[in-house]
Each structure stands twice: as C-alpha cells, then as structure tokens.
C-alpha cells in the first residue's frame, strides 16, 4: 500500500511463487508485497537465491511454468491485475509499458541481429511505427543513452560493442516504448567499476529526463546507496526489511540488514582489523516457510523464530522489518 501521497504505479500483494521439483517444492518467493511510486527508484538487495529476480520475473509472467507456479498474489499495474492477464495482454505490457534490463548484456542481446533491428522491433510491434519512423526513433534512443555516432552503429552487431556500450544498448531497448516502469536486474554487475560509474550516471540522467519508476535489483549495497530512493532487502524469498534509503542505511532494524552492512568493507573510513561475518550458509529454499528464513544464521534468534515466520511490522516512517526481535529495545517485539 502506498503510504505517501503519491499514487503507486505498481502494487504487488502477497506474491507467492514456488518451483515444483522432484525433490519437493522450492519456495522461491514467499508472500512478497511491495509497491512502486511514480518516478521513484526502488532498490532490491539480496544475495543469490534470495528471490529478488524470481519476484520480478513472476510479475510479468517470464518464468517457465511449469516448473514455476505463481500460487498466490495480485500485481496491480495501470488498473489491471497482471497475474490474471492472458499471454496476449501480458505481451502488450512487457517491453512496452514495463521495460527490462538484464544482467549480462551479451546473453540478452541476440548475436545474429544487428542492434538496430533489436531496437526497432519493439517500436514496430508495440507502437506500430513505420520503418523509417522507427529507425529515426532508434537513432534518437542510442543518442539518449550516450552512444556516439548512433546512426552508423545501428548496423553493428552486439559483439562489436564493449560491455558498457552493450548495456547502454539494452537500456535503449528497454526505454524504446517509453515505459512507465523499468525493471533492471543486476544491470551493472557484469561491468567494471569505472564503466559501472558511467552507467549509474546515465541512469540518474535518464530518470530526470524521462521520469519513469525503476526497480533496481542488485547485491551491491554501494550501488543501492548511490541511486535508490527506497530499499527493499530480501532474504530467503522474503522481504525482511524495507525503508527509505538513508533511514535504512542509518538505522537498519533487521539483524540480517545490520550484519550485511557490517560485512561490507569500504574504500574510505575506518579499516576494520577483522571483517564481520555472517556465519553459516545461505538458506535452503526447500525448507518450509513456516519459520523465519534467517533464524539459523541469526545471533538473536529465539524460540519464536522457529515456530512462526515474522510478518513485516512498521519500525519507523515508511520503514518496516520482519523480525520478532526489537533491536533497539533489546527485547522481543509484542506482535
């Protein structure tokens, strides 16, 4: 639910996705709820297997079903429930009203078509532009994402671009139909830091120019700190904490968020003699979702964490966390 005055463009409620495997069910996404306000950038942080990508793929029906199954939930986007849509309706949304940028630009671009074709395709399919108009728009888009000599480069193939340039092409494709929401799944993870800095700068610029809302998935807390307005921390298929970026980094309330922030060394500031660690291994998603996913690694875990799965409770303005322990009071929470 939006708690600010701004209307939300995307509203996800109780999303639950499971994978059916021979060894039983994998609870990849477990009762995830979140909303996205117009024009905001929501950062989604989590380690591999935390469910951040699967959540976003579930929203727009990009998961192979079976083995995946979206068991529960509602995804409101522009007045329709995406989970109730059929394939044709979804196709009209995907790539048009909701754009995507994936992690590895080399594998998400088709190597046998030139980039011009790949940018023009959604323009012709979704917006019904004529060939020449689509071409002009494609040049415009490449210029927008900072690719020099755009008109000539339309004829180039993905392998002729560097990693950073390829990611710019991906962004151009995602922006082609002027989407309301852009979902970026680890878009800078495969890039070097200096190239990552260029892409982050580009995204900040584009947000100002175009004003779309962005969901930015990453495992890099540094990147999130730099670009997000609001952060959602995921662990074991669940949202464990959510809040405005400054508030969350200054006052993390979930033990996982706290420890995660402490394990990351920095290039400035104090250098710790020894790194803080989170003991143990990432969670097995095959386990039953009836207890807190973090309990095995949590230094504060107590009996209740074993018996119930905590729900998210408000812990500050626009800030909530799913934990039975109140870290400020140093005592269990009364909920």
């Amino acid at each position: 639910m939006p708690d600010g005055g701004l209307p939300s463009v995307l509203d996800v409620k109780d999303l639950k996705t499971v994978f059916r495997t021979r060894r039983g069910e994998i609870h990849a996404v477990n009762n995830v709820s979140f909303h996205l306000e117009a024009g905001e950038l929501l950062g989604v942080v989590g380690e591999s297997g935390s469910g951040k990508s699967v959540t976003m793929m579930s929203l727009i029906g990009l998961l192979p079903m079976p083995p995946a199954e979206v068991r529960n939930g509602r995804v409101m986007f522009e007045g329709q429930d995406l989970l109730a849509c059929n394939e044709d309706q979804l196709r009209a949304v995907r790539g048009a009203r909701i754009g995507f940028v994936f992690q590895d630009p080399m594998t998400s671009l088709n190597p046998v078509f030139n980039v011009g074709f790949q940018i023009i395709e959604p323009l012709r399919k979704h917006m019904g532009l004529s060939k020449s108009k689509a071409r002009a728009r494609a040049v415009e888009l490449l210029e927008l994402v900072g690719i020099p000599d755009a008109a000539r480069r339309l004829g180039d193939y993905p392998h002729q671009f560097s990693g950073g340039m390829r990611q710019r092409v991906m962004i151009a494709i995602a922006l082609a139909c002027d989407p309301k929401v852009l979902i970026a799944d680890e878009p800078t993870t495969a890039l070097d830091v200096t190239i990552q800095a260029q892409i982050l700068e580009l995204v900040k610029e584009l947000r100002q120019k175009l004003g779309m809302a962005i969901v930015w998935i990453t495992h890099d807390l540094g990147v999130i700190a730099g670009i997000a307005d609001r952060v959602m921390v995921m662990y074991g298929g669940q949202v464990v904490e959510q809040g405005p970026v400054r508030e969350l980094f200054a006052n993390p309330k979930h033990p996982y968020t706290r420890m995660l922030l402490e394990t990351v060394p920095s290039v400035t500031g104090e250098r710790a003699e020894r790194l803080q660690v989170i003991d143990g291994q990432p969670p097995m998603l095959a386990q039953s979702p009836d207890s807190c996913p973090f309990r095995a690694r949590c230094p504060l875990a107590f009996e209740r964490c074993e018996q119930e799965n905590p729900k998210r409770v408000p812990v500050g303005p626009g800030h909530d966390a799913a934990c039975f322990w109140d870290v400020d009071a140093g005592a269990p929470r009364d909920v």
Partner: protein
Amino acid sequence: MRGLRAMFDTSANKKLVEVDGLKMYFPIYTGLLRRHTGNVKAVDGVSFDIMEGETLGLVGESGCGKSTCGRAILRLYEPTAGSIKIDGEEIADVGFDKLRKMRPTMQMVFQEPQASLNPRMTVAAIIGEPLSEHSGKSRSDQLDRIYELMDAVGLNRDFANRYPHEFSGGQRQRIGIARALALNPKFIVCDEPIAALDVSIQAQVVNLLEDLQKQFGLTYLFISHDLSMVRHIADRVAVMYLGKVVELAPREDLYADPLHPYTKALLSAVPEPDPVAHDNANRTILQGDVPSPSNPPEGCNFCTRCPSVMDICRKIDPEFREVRPGRFVACHLLNDTKMPAEPTAAVEA
C-alpha cells in the same frame, strides 16, 4: 651481486617473490596462412617484489592483465620476457623437471571454485592430489594430512567423501584453499578468490585467508577487482591498467592519497555503501573504454582516458619509478619536479 644487495637491504623482511620486467604476449595469427601478425600484450613489463609474509594486492579492471600476471608468475604460462624469482630461485626459464620440484612452494587459489574442482573427484581426492603427486606419503599419512587440512579451512571431516556439487560456493572455495595448502607452500596466488561468492560469504573466506596466513606464515598475491576487499586484506597494493602496473604503494597511502590519475578515478568510481557519502562525492567519471591490449596507444597506456592528459603522454611512455619512499608511479604528472635520477632498486636489474 646478490650479497651486495642483501647487505643494503636493511629491512628485516626478505623478498620472497621478485618479478622484473615480466612480459606475457599472446600471438595473434591471421589470414589463410596463419601468419603471426601481432601480439596481445596482456602483461607488458611488470616489476614488483613481494616480501615474506606480506599480501600484495593486485587490482585492475577486467582485461588489464592481472590474472595473466598471476598465472605467468607461477609459470602456468610461458612468459615472453622477464625474470621471476621465488625464494631466490629463478623460475622464468628453468626446465620442466626442476620447475616441477619447485611447485610445492608456490600454489594457486582460483576464481571459480566450480570450474577449478573436478566434479568427479571427492573432496578427499581433490585435496589429496597434490600430496600423492609430490609428497610420496603413504595413503594413511595422506589421509591424516587431508583431515588436518579440512580442519584448517573449516570443513567438516565427515564430508571427505562427498563431491564438489554437494557444497555451497563458499565451502567449495574452502576446498580449493585446502588443496593449495596441502604441500605447505610459501607463496599462494589468490586469483579473484571471492569474486564468485555472495557478500556474506566473501567475508568468511577473506577472514579464513588471513587466519591461514598468520598460522602458516604465507605470502599472498591477492588478485581482485574489488578495491574495498583489497584494502582490507593487502599490505601493499599494485594497480594495473592495460598490462602495466601504474601505481604501487603501501595500502594506507594508496587509498588515502592516490597519485596516478587512473588510481584516483578507480577509487572514486567505487560506490560506497553509504547514501550520505554519495551526495557529497566528487566523482571522476572516466570516459570511454579500455583500449585493446593488441593495439595499445602510443605513449602512456592511459592517455586515451586520462582526465589530465598532456602532450608528452601521447608520445613517451612514462617510467615506473619511486616518487616517494615505497611509492612507485608511472605518470608524467609526477615527473615535472625533475628529481635527480636515483638508482632505485627496481631499476637496478
């Protein structure tokens, strides 16, 4: 010569690894006749020393040659030119038999634990392979040693007969580390050992590497693109760009006061996990991409992207020299003071 040098070397630490003018070129063959038409200059004249018990961090972006450098130092490649001494012994051009005898002193931990462990071998067989190849121990002695190593890296002994796929990424990396430790090496090249791991597991592995270093007196070359992790683990840091070391300095000096424009840009590009710092950050954003190592620019390799490029940079390749005690930089910007050319240790050979 060595005696003289040792006399002047007043520091208590002994140089364990000495790399001088290391070059590693990969030939390019083109055309129907597969003619040799050029070289990929992956490592192009790199010199540094590593003291005993020290960790030297080697950082740089992908394709800068840092991994190639690490592999060439262990002679996993045949270096094109240069000298590599490990524990005083030249290894750049020794014969295969002699090299094999020296292998136990120098080991490697690889980036992808998944790809560097044979999926058909059990953990015990993986850790025991160097023992059966080099140590001549009996099977039961080998097994004792395998258990000892598993304890040292924090793996449960009961898992000795399991296969790599049954372990998580962090545990697999522990197997790789145990294998590297098996023959009591002095020097270990860690090639991006944490890059494939999750944030919360990275810290576990780094702490383990630090503990083992203390316990066994190991010397590391820690190759990584993660500048914040290198700041944590390394004593000194070398920054590579397009096949060359552009700056080499003690850790605190490098991070507090980087001298080379590339180091400055690289450090300012690292996103800090602190939203407040981002607002105040004064970033240098480098334009463009790294040039191809098969066709590096004339003059300084960084001249195509350098924010403070001068005319001289496009003509003359700056010398890698000691500009302050312990701080080596290859940049014309630091040469204008025209200090008298002192014969430094790095130039001597």
